[in-house]
């Protein structure tokens, strides 16, 4: 059954190539094809979760081309990968359904779908690979597709945002490639598990210094990709300018896959982080959290506000993971999936309001609760989740992170996390008051609810927001989240396990 692992890349790539070959002749064809691709990948990620729970070592491997590990490329799926696969493909499915009617107003829809499929293939490729150069290649695929998608509207500010994103993204990729070259020269291997084992068996006094330096380089490289605070300047522009489903994808899953997943996988499972690196991660997390939310308070553009909140919520994830206690990692990873769900939901609602009202300015919106009840309902759920109101998923993950801070005696971090949570709440009160419930200055007579294909994904994601807290119940947790935490908690044992199974 390991044969389904490469399908996560093959199916979207086939979708992209067929879209490019045949989609230009029929719009209906590309709609149907892309949605089938997303449904298939989502289905297979559930299948692989069940397979993984049945397998003895909780790890599945696959040899591409039949070559054994350090010689060829190996694909590995463990619980952390499955968590990411599920999130990515579910959000991609929702965005793909949403695109059917949202992208009607743009020309050349097949190009959009082909790029979307390539981006999905790139993200899945990063998640399942176990080879550091292969990871770089797929990272570039996803990144290049997203550069093009940000510029898809062909207006001046979109091109500008895309160029900024391109320059910073390319510099980040260059730094990552530089560290790959250094690793290759030092270790003479490219397979992640092999690198880890060779490094731990190596007798060299300077080994610790080398690992620390490479870790720092990688934190800078992946930090730019995931927009941690000193490197965040491209994110608000890019997410504001992209079409709404692409903002939802890139804020929800793209930067998590390219940034946080890749960074955490290499630092925790391959190098094994030390205390100094962890404290750098925690500081970056706190900084992103605080600066992001402060900048968000000033915004009146709905999408730009959401983009700044993304930076701040990444801070929570990084903080939780950086604490490196079981509870902290649980909170960080749970917040990662929660954030994917509610941030995509909020970006989709912003797309809905933008396409009906033609503006993103909160001051020109308002009185939408009667005209667009379902969109307003989704925005309400999303806002309550992101600001941590009790029954919703955002509350649970934030609570776990704050408790983990206190448990790890990082009282200051816990304090900042609480403050940021309140600031988020106040910011989203503003959104709801001006954007959806308050009085409007503009005439909204001709406003109708958006088409069904845009409502359905929003409802699906809202339901996820409401019920995802259930994942924390001990009976469910032991099948899924606990295993995910174990992957990071056990650190470099990953390499030994993978190497046995190659």
């Amino acid at each position: 059954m390991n044969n389904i692992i490469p399908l996560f890349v093959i199916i979207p790539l086939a979708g992209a190539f067929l879209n490019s070959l045949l989609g230009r002749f029929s719009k209906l064809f590309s709609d149907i094809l892309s949605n089938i691709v997303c449904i298939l990948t989502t289905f297979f990620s559930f299948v692989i979760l069940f397979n993984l729970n049945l397998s003895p070592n909780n790890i599945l491997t696959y040899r591409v081309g039949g070559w054994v590990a350090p010689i060829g490329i190996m694909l590995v799926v463990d619980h952390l990968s499955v968590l990411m696969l599920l999130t990515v493909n579910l959000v991609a499915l929702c965005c793909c359904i949403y695109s059917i009617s949202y992208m009607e107003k743009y020309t050349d829809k097949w190009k959009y779908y082909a790029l979307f499929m390539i981006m999905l293939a790139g993200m899945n490729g990063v998640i399942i690979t176990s080879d550091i150069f292969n990871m770089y290649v797929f990272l570039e695929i996803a990144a290049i597709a997203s550069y093009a998608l940000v510029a898809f509207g062909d207006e001046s500010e979109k091109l500008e945002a895309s160029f900024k994103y391109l320059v910073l993204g390319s510099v980040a990729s260059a730094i990552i490639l530089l560290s790959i070259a250094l690793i290759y020269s030092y270790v003479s291997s490219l397979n992640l598990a092999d690198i880890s084992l060779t490094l731990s068996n190596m007798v060299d006094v300077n080994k610790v210094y080398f690992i620390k330096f490479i870790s720092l380089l990688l934190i800078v490289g992946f930090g730019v990709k995931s927009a941690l605070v000193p490197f965040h300047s491209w994110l608000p522009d890019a997410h504001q300018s992209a079409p709404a489903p692409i903002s939802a994808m890139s804020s929800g899953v793209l930067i998590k896959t390219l940034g946080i997943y890749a960074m955490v996988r290499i630092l925790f499972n391959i190098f094994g982080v030390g205390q100094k690196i962890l404290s750098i991660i925690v500081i970056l997390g706190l900084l992103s959290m605080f600066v992001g939310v402060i900048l968000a308070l000033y915004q009146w553009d709905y999408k730009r506000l959401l983009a700044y909140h993304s930076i701040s919520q990444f801070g929570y994830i990084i903080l939780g993971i950086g604490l490196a206690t079981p509870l902290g990692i649980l909170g960080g990873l749970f917040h990662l999936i929660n954030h994917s769900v509610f941030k995509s939901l909020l970006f989709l609602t912003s797309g809905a309001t933008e396409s009906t009202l033609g503006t993103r300015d909160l001051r020109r919106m308002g009185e939408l609760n009667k005209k667009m009840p379902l969109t307003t309902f989704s925005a309400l759920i999303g806002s309550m989740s992101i600001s941590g109101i009790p029954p919703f998923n955002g509350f649970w993950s934030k609570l776990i992170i704050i408790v983990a801070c206190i448990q790890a005696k990082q009282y200051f971090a816990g304090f900042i996390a609480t403050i940021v949570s309140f600031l988020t709440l106040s910011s989203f009160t503003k959104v709801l008051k001006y954007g959806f419930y308050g009085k409007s200055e503009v005439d909204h007579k001709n406003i109708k609810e958006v088409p069904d294909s845009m409502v359905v994904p929003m409802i699906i994601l809202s339901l996820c927001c409401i019920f995802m807290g259930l994942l924390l119940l001990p009976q469910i947790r032991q099948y899924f989240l606990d295993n995910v935490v174990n992957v990071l908690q056990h650190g470099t044992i990953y390499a030994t396990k993978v190497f046995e199974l190659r």
Partner: protein
Amino acid sequence: MSHLPYILCLILFLIGLYAVLVKKNLIKIIIGLGIIDYSLNLFLVLIGYKKQSIFPILSKDTQIQPMVDPLPQALVLTAIVIGLAVTMLMVAIAIRLYEKYETFDITQIRKLKG
């Protein structure tokens, strides 16, 4: 002394980085990223070079000889393509931006702020 080519190669990398960070012209930024690409490709090939060895291609008649490391060469082939792809996309966006703003100067291309 034995690391001299590596260090020179990294100086090339940093010249590119400097150009990207300091220059205000879109084409200069593209050139800077091009220099970064060159230096990284060269660096990968340099770390695979072995003294007194031949290129990794077999021939029919001669006996096998020590060869240089072929793996970085394969990686660089991929990296060159990625560099070309990025350059092409950047030039396309730069031309589009020139059409909208009639300049390559990034200080005058500034609609987004906040």
